[in-house]
């Protein structure tokens, strides 16, 4: 295989890997649902009704968070909508990069916090919102900010809110189904008296315990993949990888956590806003929403030969 070195290569590689992960995730979801359904029915598929129920519950919950994603997150983070006259510099910067990306202009918000961070959300490009902390606007220079804005706009252009919602529905379905199953084991289901396949039962119990964890890990792997993808597609917009690389280094060097972020919204930000909680070890690294800064900077510096 040839060496991967341009932003184009990084984009196609990350897109490909997303679909590989999604492919195996679908197979995994079907296998888990099958195993647990068999467990309910003791050898015959008996839990499919419950699977439907879990799917609908997870679907409704996630549809709410998908459809009103911008309002919910912006409300939680206390972001304020700005107009051109409030901050012409950042407004123009977003405007110009939107033209280059061919995206409609998103609503621009500022979070009054000295921590350095930014995020983008919204169910589609027409309902997109992009938010900056006042700290990031002060501490980064124009080229670094351009890198950050391009990264955020790439999330919008790549429809990451939609993808992550689909993933959340799958994870939620598996979690709910496992929960139903474990409860029915504890409190006794209607199938208790029927004698069935013990092997199937053991498999189902194992699946119910392990599947939610595995599903969450896959969800985080997708999230990390999309971050790398947004980095690379952002570079295609600015044609200046060093801008984003230097911004990421500055953001990670700043140890101040962002108070308004929490575990639920952390994956949206450009860097993990919950500072000091990023784990370095490989095993713990599986639980991170973002790839380590060193990995991202290294990938960006590989794209250096682009222009």
């Amino acid at each position, binding site marked *: 295989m040839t060496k991967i070195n341009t932003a184009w290569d990084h984009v196609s590689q990350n897109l490909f890997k997303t679909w590989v992960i999604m492919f195996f995730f679908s197979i995994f979801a079907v296998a888990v649902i099958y195993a647990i359904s068999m467990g309910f029915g003791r050898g015959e598929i008996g839990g499919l009704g419950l699977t439907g129920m879990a799917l609908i519950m997870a679907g409704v919950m996630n549809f709410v968070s998908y459809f009103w994603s911008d309002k919910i997150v912006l409300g939680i983070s206390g972001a304020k909508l700005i107009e051109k006259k409030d901050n012409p510099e950042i407004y*123009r910067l977003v*405007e*110009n990069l939107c*033209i*280059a*990306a*061919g995206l409609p202009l998103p609503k621009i918000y500022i979070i009054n916090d000295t921590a350095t961070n930014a995020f983008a959300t919204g169910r589609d490009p027409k309902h997109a919102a992009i938010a900056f902390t006042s700290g990031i606007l002060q501490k980064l220079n124009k080229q670094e900010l351009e890198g950050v804005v391009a990264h955020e706009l790439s999330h919008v252009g790549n429809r990451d809110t939609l993808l992550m919602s689909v993933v959340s529905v799958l994870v939620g379905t598996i979690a709910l189904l496992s929960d139903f199953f474990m409860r029915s084991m504890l409190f006794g289901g209607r199938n208790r008296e029927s004698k069935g396949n013990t092997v199937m039962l053991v498999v189902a119990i194992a699946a119910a315990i392990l599947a939610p964890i595995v599903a969450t890990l896959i969800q985080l792997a997708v999230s990390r993949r999309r971050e790398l993808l947004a980095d690379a597609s952002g570079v*295609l*917009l600015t044609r200046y990888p060093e801008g984003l690389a230097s911004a990421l280094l500055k953001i990670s060097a700043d140890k101040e956590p962002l108070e308004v972020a929490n575990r639920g919204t952390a994956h949206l930000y450009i860097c993990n806003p919950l500072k000091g909680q990023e784990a370095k070890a490989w095993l713990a690294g599986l639980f991170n929403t973002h790839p380590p800064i060193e990995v991202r900077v290294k990938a960006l510096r590989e794209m250096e030969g682009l222009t």
Partner: protein
Amino acid sequence: MITYIIIGIVVLLAFWLLATYNGLVTLRNRVREAWSQIDVQLKRRSSLIPNLVEAVKGYVKHEKGVLEEVTKARTSLMDAKNPHDAAAADNMLTGALKSLFAVAENYPQLRASENFKALQDELSDTETKVAASRQFYNTNVLDLNNSLETVPSAWIGQMFSFKKEEFFKASEEEKADIKVNF
């Protein structure tokens, strides 16, 4: 049995042909839309020029030639009908504006004028916007040209005589300009 297989293959082929053809049409329309976006920005840029000339005229007495250059470039930009001419005219305007702003450096009163500063800001922002829309246009041209050069979509392209589009390039002049400046 064999007839069914043949019918199946023919139907699949027809669907593939339709999808590829529609894909190419979409790409071509995107290029056109991207071009109209450049046009919007170029119009915006040329509409700022008369104000600029008006603001500068009173101060710049000895360098009338610079102003004439700017006006001439603006006229040819307004008259440009295709990407190639527009690119050339736009590059000419960029060069003319550069010399105008260089001349303006010699007039402290002009530099201090709020109106002039605002116009200068607006023009440099428009220049960035022209560059951005140019980039978006080129991305779309790349997509279209890629499809027209890679098989199998290239075959469909030939069949329905789709044409490759031209990139919106910086002129040789502009590239040379940058070297001289350093």
